[in-house]
């Protein structure tokens, strides 16, 4: 699920009027692991550049700078900002002398309003390449005086914040004139909007799998109409159940988590049914709200999943393909020649374990590398290690020097390196016994929404 070309076509289909705003609250370009994996840096910057082009094409209005966006260094981020036809915003990212490095605020006119967009960068440990040139100021130093000026010049104020959830809450409680606060870097799940003081807070799920759409009918009174209590209670229950269900799924599903406890499995099934019931109820209420004439500032929110069935935007597909090709060239130039000498490949297992080998050869594991090749993703370091044998996140860069017989999720991916076992089968048993934890390294919620350990392990061979 996910993808920029799906996102673009979805936005095209949803943007039926001119009164739209497209914004991102930060951590657009790099993931949190990049800092510890310098081999991925060049490829990540090439991808980031393609992302800027894609966001230009989608006519984005602004993005905030998350602290993780500095992972490739300040120069790289400034180059990306120059390439963008929309501003990168940060009100608290400054140089050593305290001067702003990017615009703090941008104004746009939409829906008859003057809208102010502010960016805030989160406080985290900066990468070595940035720590000498950049400081991230606390929000208390910049926001109060800035908001006072901005509020007088705008009708609706949006803060794109990469700060922690507790800091965002404090901002909402202390600053009355921020009307919408979009978070980043907070929680992987979608968060239904909630009003704190007079600030509506929300965020979409991580990794670009969902597109948030908030329809706002703002009022000159500049206050949100608070939802009735029963509505809020339903949303609270829905959020709580959503959190519980996602935790169980992350751990491998109810059959695995509650193993032999049927009562707990039944309780989970009831929670799931209640969750689905609540989803329908909340949707119906939102539709009813929409039908009624809004008396004051109101909103409705929807998280659109970027499902594989959505059409692709050809322009963005081409952009990404070009970036992949460029990234592949860099990868080939930098290929490592180290041998993974404890591995022997699945073909070597066949002579003793033929029935298992033949069953495995019919599975998705056997063709996992070809699947990547077909998508031109076989040199993508965030993908490849889950589609081959013998590599992990930190050694994914070795993929280009991998022998052909390791280019699949083969026997040794789950049972461990087989060289010793191959030489002395009785004296050297295999080193690994596959379990749910091993499978979830790759079949986690981020990559495989529908994975169910007990059910799916039967399909391995």
């Amino acid at each position, binding site marked *: 699920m996910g993808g920029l070309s799906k996102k673009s076509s979805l936005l095209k289909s949803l*943007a039926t009027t001119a009164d739209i705003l*497209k914004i991102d609250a*930060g951590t657009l370009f790099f993931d949190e692991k*990049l800092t510890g994996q310098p081999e991925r840096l060049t490829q990540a910057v090439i991808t980031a550049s393609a992302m800027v082009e894609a966001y230009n094409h989608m006519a984005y209005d602004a993005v905030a700078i998350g602290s993780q966006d500095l992972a490739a260094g300040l120069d790289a981020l400034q180059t990306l900002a120059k390439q963008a036809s929309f501003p990168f915003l940060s009100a608290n990212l400054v140089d050593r002398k305290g001067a702003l490095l990017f615009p703090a605020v941008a104004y746009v006119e939409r829906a008859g309003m003057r809208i102010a967009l502010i960016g805030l960068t989160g406080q985290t440990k900066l990468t070595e390449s940035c720590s000498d040139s950049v400081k991230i100021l606390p929000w208390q130093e910049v926001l109060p005086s800035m908001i006072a000026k901005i509020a007088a010049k705008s009708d609706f104020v949006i803060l794109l914040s990469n700060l922690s959830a507790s800091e965002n809450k404090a901002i909402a409680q202390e600053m009355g004139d921020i009307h*919408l606060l979009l978070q980043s870097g907070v929680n992987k799940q979608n968060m239904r909007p909630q009003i704190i003081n007079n600030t509506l807070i929300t965020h*979409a799920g991580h990794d670009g799998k969902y*597109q948030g759409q908030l329809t706002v009918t703002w009022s000159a009174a500049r206050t949100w109409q608070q939802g009735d209590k029963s509505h809020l209670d339903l949303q609270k229950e829905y959020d709580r159940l959503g959190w519980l269900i996602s935790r169980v799924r992350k751990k491998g599903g109810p059959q695995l988590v509650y193993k032999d406890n049927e009562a707990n499995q039944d309780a989970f099934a009831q929670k799931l049914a209640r969750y689905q019931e609540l989803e329908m109820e909340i949707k119906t209420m939102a539709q009813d709200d929409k039908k009624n004439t809004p008396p004051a500032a109101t909103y409705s929110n929807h998280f659109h999943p970027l499902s594989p069935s959505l059409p692709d935007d050809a322009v963005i597909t081409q952009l990404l393909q070009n970036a992949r090709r460029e990234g592949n060239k860099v990868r080939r130039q930098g290929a490592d020649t180290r041998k993974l000498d404890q591995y022997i490949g699945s073909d070597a297992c066949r002579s003793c374990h033929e029935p298992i080998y033949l069953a495995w050869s019919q599975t998705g594991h056997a063709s996992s590398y070809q699947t990547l090749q077909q998508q031109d993703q076989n040199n993508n370091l965030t993908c490849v290690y*889950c*589609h081959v044998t013998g590599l992990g996140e930190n050694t994914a860069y070795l993929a280009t020097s991998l022998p052909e017989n390791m280019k699949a999720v083969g026997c040794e991916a789950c049972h461990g390196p087989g060289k010793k076992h191959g030489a002395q089968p009785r004296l050297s048993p295999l080193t690994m016994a596959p379990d749910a934890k091993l499978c979830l390294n790759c079949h986690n919620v981020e990559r495989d929404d529908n994975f169910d350990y007990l059910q799916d392990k039967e399909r391995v061979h």
Partner: protein
Amino acid sequence: MAFLNKTACLFIIILPIALLLAPSQGYSYNALDIFYSNDVSGKTEPCG
């Protein structure tokens, strides 16, 4: 005198219109669709 009358007439006509057009506390703007995302973290497309 005629000038004053004219000014007064204009004032009487324009003032209510201006008041009507000015955004009052109950005034609602057009609906605005805000499309938002966060933490895309360099993910451009699924692996395969």
